């Protein structure tokens, strides 16, 4: 059974909760290698999304939900993460427009589209210590799980696990994009906040799918 509009709504609700819970943690990650606002920015954005969720039609598809998230994040988050996450959700919506349910292939499609959207806007490559270092392993793991014939929740779980590992793996890196890039060697030893929030969001997607 694929992921429904219901799942998408629940994911948003859970994301908002997870981000709120991790607001301080994300701020704390952003402080040493950024400007200490990543948690604040995302929290502001997801609270807005939450407030708008009720406005969706009852039969909203996952793409409709993604689009709402995209537009709301773009217009409320600001900073680097706002346009990047906004583009990600917008491209994700584009990849599954109209589909009432998302099967494994659709999941891989929207994850891929999301990642590609971030690359298009932010021009980051892998290993540059950005959220891409969580997204790309997630996309690859999801594609692998799909090839292995896993279920939708399993595919999302694989993506989340890979994103978590990817976020962790940003720690030893020097940054080449975003504010952390100004730090040179001094970014080493710090986890990228955007990669961490990506892992949190994908873990939330998997958790909600597994319920």
């Amino acid at each position, binding site marked *: 059974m694929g992921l429904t509009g219901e799942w998408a709504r629940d994911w948003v609700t859970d994301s908002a909760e997870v981000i709120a819970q991790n607001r301080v943690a994300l*701020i704390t990650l952003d*402080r*040493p290698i*950024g*400007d*200490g*606002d990543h948690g*604040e*920015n995302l929290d*502001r954005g997801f609270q807005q999304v939450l407030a708008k969720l009720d406005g969706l039609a009852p039969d909203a598809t996952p793409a409709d939900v993604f689009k709402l998230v995209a537009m709301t994040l*773009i*217009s*409320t*988050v*600001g*900073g*680097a*993460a*706002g*346009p*990047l996450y*906004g583009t990600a959700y917008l491209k994700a919506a584009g990849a599954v427009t109209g589909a009432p349910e998302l099967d494994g292939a659709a999941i891989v499609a929207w994850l891929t589209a999301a990642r590609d959207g971030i690359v298009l*806007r*932010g021009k980051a490559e892998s290993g540059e210590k950005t959220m891409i270092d969580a997204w790309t392993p997630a996309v690859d793991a999801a594609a692998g799980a799909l090839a292995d014939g896993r279920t939708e929740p399993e595919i999302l779980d694989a993506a989340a696990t890979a994103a978590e590992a990817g976020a962790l793996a940003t720690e030893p890196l*020097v940054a*080449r*994009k*975003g*504010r952390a*890039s*100004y*730090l*040179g060697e*001094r970014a080493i030893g710090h986890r990228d906040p955007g990669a961490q929030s990506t892992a949190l969001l994908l873990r939330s997607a998997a958790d909600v799918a597994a319920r």
Partner: protein
Amino acid sequence: MKKLINDPKNVVLEAASGIALAHSDIVTVSMDPLFIVRKDAPVRGKVGIVSGGGSGHEPLHGGFVGFGMLDAAVPGPVFTSPTPDPILAATHAVDGGAGVLHIVKNYTGDVLNFETAAELAEAEGLTVRSVIVNDDVAVKDSLYTAGRRGVAGTVLVEKIAGAAAERGDDLDAVAAIAERVNAEVRTMGVGLTPCIVPHAGEPSFTLDEDEIEIGIGIHGEPGRERIRLEPADAIVDRLLPHIVDDVPFVSGDRVLLFVNGMGGTPLVELYIVFRRAAELLAERGIEVSRTLVGNFVSSLEMQGCSITVLRLDDELTELYDAPVQTAALRWGR
């Protein structure tokens, strides 16, 4: 955290109300979406100029809205770039039919949000050009970074581009002037103390009682190196070569020397820094023909300063000297 604020969430909006009340002769403030616009905008036939970015750098950008400088400024949350919506709204508000120039500091957030706004504006039939300011020589190698940051030099780009727009230059010409200023301006800063973003409630970094941060950014981002506190002259001696040798500025050049306070450093110290910087330029045969000293691009209550040098030619000088009437920069009217 000791600040003259109410709820940290309301800092930007309440300050905007204050600006509206304090400068109603010069600007109008739209509260939602939030932007500060020249009272007589849109000026028909004139290129509109919009800038913006995170709050906490006042008077940048709202203090530079007015005759001869910006048509609108879009303040984001503290140290966070504004979203595309208010940028788009401000762009509409200043479009007098001759197109709109976005002046954007080179931070990923600012660039992406202005880019999105510009795309939306173009989609709605406006003509928008963007100039990215990246004057900060503290960032070492642009191949391996998000590129140089846009810092205090932004004021000079805004002043001079604003004068070009005011004299009737078309969009391409105004953008070209802005690019030219950006090409000729270099900045580097030093931070003595951190600052506290109101909603964060604690400093974004810490410095020991005898440590300073060379090459600090305007959000308190760490800079090039952390060293022991030194006398002002020694600090200037450290900063200036990076600034001067980059373009490079050479003997015989005429320049504008701008010492900018980060917000928490008293003016008396900025003059001590200015003195040494002027001495060093003189030693190199570089003529300081225009000057600016004060807190123009601040980082909340951070102590520290930046030094900016802009190479002038006759046209840039004339445009810099042209009348300007804004809250923070005013002469000639």
